[in-house]
């Protein structure tokens, strides 16, 4: 197997990569976390519980779902099960990242706690075919985590003062992040564009055809199925 280069090369460069790639995630997380803090308080949680959930669980979609379920009086076991299903995609993302992050294995394993949709796509797509260093991932993911905690605390603390509809709409930032990551790769390799488009349509189709299917399973099925079919396409020459 060809040995892939690790970016960035030096230590200072690794830190800079982490900072510049962590910034858009942190920026995208802040309003979403603030919204979570507000909704958590509205569901009857305390500021400590809201911040604690962000610190321990650290899984956006699952936290929103849990808060909604708490508010409607759903039992503990069902919430934990729903969280497991919605978050199981991170198992697949970690599988990719475990092979992508270069350096100390125990350190990388410790950082697995910080694998999210956003840290995953930035590390895997933005770095392209190259590996990324543990340090780069650490800095990037630390910024994301701190933004998530800060936002949750602020949202919980000032739940009565912040107009939730306005901050909620700022959640568009994360979609802009995904789109900004996808466009350059899609322009370089039509295979990537096709796979992304087919997966989006499949996820949409599944949500229409099988409304009973949870969001978590729809995402996993679309992503795994379409990327498997994509292996039939001619190779994207990723090492340019």
């Amino acid at each position: 197997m060809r040995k892939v280069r690790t970016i960035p090369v030096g230590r200072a460069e690794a830190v800079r990569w982490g900072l510049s790639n962590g910034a858009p995630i942190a920026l995208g997380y802040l309003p979403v976390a603030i919204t979570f803090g507000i909704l958590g308080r509205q569901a009857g949680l305390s500021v400590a519980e809201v911040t604690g959930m962000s610190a321990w669980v650290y899984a956006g979609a699952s936290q929103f779902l849990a808060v909604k379920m708490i508010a409607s009086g759903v039992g503990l076991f069902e919430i934990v099960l729903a969280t497991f299903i919605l978050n199981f995609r991170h198992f697949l993302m970690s599988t990719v990242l475990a092979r992508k992050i270069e350096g100390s294995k125990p350190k990388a394993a410790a950082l697995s706690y910080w694998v999210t949709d956003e840290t995953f796509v930035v590390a895997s797509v933005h770095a392209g075919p190259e590996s990324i260093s543990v340090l780069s991932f650490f800095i990037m993911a630390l910024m994301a985590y701190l933004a998530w905690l800060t936002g949750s605390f602020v949202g919980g603390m000032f739940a009565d003062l912040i107009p939730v509809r306005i901050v909620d709409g700022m959640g568009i930032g994360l979609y802009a992040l995904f789109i900004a990551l996808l466009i350059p790769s899609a322009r370089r390799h039509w295979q990537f564009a096709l796979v992304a488009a087919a997966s989006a349509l499949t996820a949409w189709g599944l949500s229409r055809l099988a409304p009973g299917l949870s969001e978590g399973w729809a995402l996993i099925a679309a992503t795994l199925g379409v990327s498997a079919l994509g292996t039939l396409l001619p190779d994207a020459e990723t090492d340019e």
Partner: protein
Amino acid sequence: MIWLLLAGMFLVTYIPRLIPFLFASQLTLPPWVQKWLKLFPYAALGALIFPGILGAVPGRPALAAGAGILAAVCALFIRNITVIVVLAIAAVLLFQGLGIPL
């Protein structure tokens, strides 16, 4: 009770994230699996963007889609992702602030 729930949620979110790091990096995978894993992030991106984006701005799917298209167009010219994130948020705030019914 809430803290017990958090402990449960912690376990079911952390364990699936951790396990691949303990095993997957040592495995030698056949080429087609490697190709599969290489395409996986792009498929994930597609499914994460759509249809979720339509619900990004509460009650205003057209505005959310418009901001998404703006981000896509900007991404053709701007390489800095932070700038694109800021532009998309600013566009939504502007339309909400001005009360433009998109």
